[in-house]
């Protein structure tokens, strides 16, 4: 099209120039729009495949795998003040729209399964936080489990939901009001959050939901929603209002994996908003005791031999973290605190190593041999065929300058939260320790 037009320009006379200009202007935007639409519609995954020297695509496939592994790693590692002590209400949509089968096996069952995973992961990541579970069914908000710090209670409560069927219509307003009520008494130093898994496209409310949103904003409750069907305007408004205009709090699941991903994102504590109060909390660090004869615990009145004695009043509780039932002191293990430190002192991202600096022969941590450095003229061939992935399969910690493989990179950032290189070298480790304690 464009070519023929230009030829035509060459042949036109001077009087027709104006007309010509307008015509090209019309054509070009339309073309661009078409192409843009195409890119949005489909990712041409097959076009990124490049045959390797041996005629197979295995190297490219491996590269893509590596890139995808790494994609989830590259998150912001600037240390932020995060609300480590969280109070979260999980609201699950239990209305008839959850019986849809667009997510396998059904939205309902998948949601309950992911909800259980979420509870487990939540307490793994936030050991000193509190969680409560609610449901939206038949236009009512129902209480599934009370706010507590004990994951097993929530898990069994969610498990029991599996025997029931989703029915009726959901009411966002009722759910939010109930969540607000249960979060009302939580101390101001913790965050108040609501996570809604919402499968419906409507909300049948008894009153004006906008007023509810206003009260949520004044109560500093932050709402995050994972939608299962399509984006709903009221959800969007709800999330952005309660999160100070942050649009990322509302996500709609594209498929099963994306659904899980959206849920698991919530397990990372949010960065604190300026207004949240910081305070000094008094906490007891009890030691475990085992008595020769069973005695009643103060929390459940059940006879047991083992337990923890409150460091202030000496009552026995059977599980930690807990609040002492008699004197109200927060009882906690120092390990619970330590488990949250990696949110506060995250491990820096490692950088890709170009062939130029690929001097190492094996991964520092696990000893996996790296591919050998090819001759210099081949460097550009393998360069940049997948984003976020290192051409030389090496990843470098900027602090200790050691090289690691992709699996160790993932493992160090997702599980251990330590750099094997920095911790293995005295000078670096001391400096690192100074950083974290200073």
């Amino acid at each position, binding site marked *: 099209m464009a070519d023929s037009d230009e030829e035509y320009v060459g042949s036109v006379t001077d009087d027709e120039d104006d007309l010509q200009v307008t015509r090209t202007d019309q054509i070009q935007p339309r073309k661009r729009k078409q192409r843009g639409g195409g890119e949005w519609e489909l990712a041409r995954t097959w076009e990124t495949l490049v045959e390797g020297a041996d005629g197979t695509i295995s190297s490219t496939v491996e590269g893509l795998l590596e890139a995808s592994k790494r994609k989830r790693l590259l998150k912001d590692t600037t240390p932020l003040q995060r609300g480590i002590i969280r109070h979260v209400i999980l609201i699950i949509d239990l209305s008839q729209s959850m019986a849809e089968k667009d997510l396998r096996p059904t939205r309902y069952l998948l949601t309950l399964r992911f909800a259980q995973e979420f509870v487990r992961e939540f307490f793994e990541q936030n050991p000193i936080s509190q969680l409560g579970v609610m449901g939206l069914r038949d236009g009512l908000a129902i209480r599934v489990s009370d706010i507590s710090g004990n994951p097993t209670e929530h898990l069994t409560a969610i498990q029991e939901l599996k025997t029931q069927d989703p029915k009726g219509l959901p009411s966002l307003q009722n759910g939010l009001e109930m969540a607000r009520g249960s979060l009302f008494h939580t101390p101001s130093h913790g965050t108040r959050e609501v996570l809604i898994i919402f499968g419906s496209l409507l909300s049948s409310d008894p009153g004006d939901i906008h007023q509810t949103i206003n009260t949520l904003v004044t109560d500093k409750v932050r709402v995050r929603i994972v939608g299962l069907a399509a984006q709903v305007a009221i959800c969007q408004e709800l999330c952005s209002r309660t999160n100070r205009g942050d649009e990322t709090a509302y996500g709609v699941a594209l498929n099963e994996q994306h659904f899980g991903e959206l849920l698991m994102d919530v397990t990372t504590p949010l960065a604190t908003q300026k207004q949240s109060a910081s305070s000094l909390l008094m906490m007891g660090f009890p030691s475990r005791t085992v008595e020769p004869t069973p005695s009643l615990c103060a929390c459940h009145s059940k006879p047991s031999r083992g337990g923890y004695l409150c460091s202030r009043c000496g009552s026995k509780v059977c599980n930690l973290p807990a609040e002492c039932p008699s004197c109200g002191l927060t009882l906690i293990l120092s390990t619970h605190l330590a488990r949250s430190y990696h949110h506060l002192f995250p491990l820096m991202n490692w950088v890709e190593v170009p062939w130029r600096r690929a001097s190492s022969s094996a991964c520092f941590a696990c000893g996996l041999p790296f591919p050998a450095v090819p001759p210099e003229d081949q460097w550009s061939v393998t360069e940049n065929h997948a984003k976020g992935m290192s051409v030389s399969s090496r990843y470098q910690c900027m602090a200790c300058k050691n090289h690691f493989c992709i699996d160790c990179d993932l493992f160090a950032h997702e599980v251990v939260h330590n750099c094997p290189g920095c911790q*293995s070298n005295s000078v670096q480790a001391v400096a690192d320790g100074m950083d974290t304690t200073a």
Partner: protein
Amino acid sequence: MNSVDASEHYELGATDLAPSLLTVVLDTNPHAWAALEGSLPLSKAVANILVFINAHLACNYANEVAVVASHTTKATWLYPIHNDDTSQESADPDGDVSMNGDDAAAPQTNKYRPFRLVEEQVTKKLKELMDSTSSNDLRGNTSTMLAGALTLALSNINRRTIAWAEEHGGADLEDAAGDGGSGGAGAGAGAAGTGPGRYSASNDDERLQSRILIVSVSGSSDSAHQYIPVMNSIFACQRLHIPIDVCKLSGDAVFLQQACDATKGVYMALSEPRGLLQYLMMAFLPDQRSRRHLVLPTRVDVDFRAACFCHRRVVDIGYVCSICLSIFCEPPPGNDCLTCGTPLDVGDFGSKPALIPRKKKKKKRVNGTSTVGTPMSTGTPTPGPG
């Protein structure tokens, strides 16, 4: 029929023989070993540990072992050695054989090969490590790089677990499902979501069984700056269901007690270090599957008290900054957190014990007889919210 029989036999064998990977973290802190010289010199201890490793290797032909040294200045691998150059050197009878002398060469040929490889490499690397330690390194440095050693051990366990899973291609391969299953652009979408599930062991029986044994001699007082990294490693172990066993020859380490408690490992402080081998064989040899049927020698009273960040005092009741979770033994001066600098509200903790007001009680009693029913009806909702 034949094929059915064959597959059945094969599967029986495969499920029975899930091998285990033992990682020994050997604390080689020269200060502490010097103090132990009278009862158990390092050379003897290493000999004992090697016998123990051989016993582990002999339990199952597929069992694997790894040895990490946690030295004062660095943590390093003793076995396996990943660097290609050194492995070629050791294959070449150069420094190694001459060190052992001629008389040692003859029995070596009759030794089970895995035993010999471990023994040669461990002694060789340990010697290299000791030779490379200068007196300057030791001056004023009495701690050990436990965090580094644990992190290295965990990285290796991760690698071996992935490799083993790939080789055996079992049904429970969360790694394969996460990585290989959607081999294309779609893989990225699932990656983060499956992340947590990937690492929480789904079926312990069918995967490589890993455990870590720490032979520890140093006290923990010097390694306070390693607190966070050590704790991070411990939580990683807990998440991966890797028990940490601790064989404590001298000193006492609070971290390690907590590590054993959190990961359900065995903690033993040896009263008689000379009997190291016997302790190792009796307490630490059984793998996870056998341990389910054994009564384990574990401590019941674990010290969970925390050390405050300001004076390093061990506290029962402390003050915790709600922002950075630092622990203080008393409200910090100026009410600013010493770690993150946030100004903190200090509540009046414990100054007023909660008392039930008397007057109300009396009033209730007046109505008591007539309203027995009403307190009941108001009483029932309370357990719900409470």
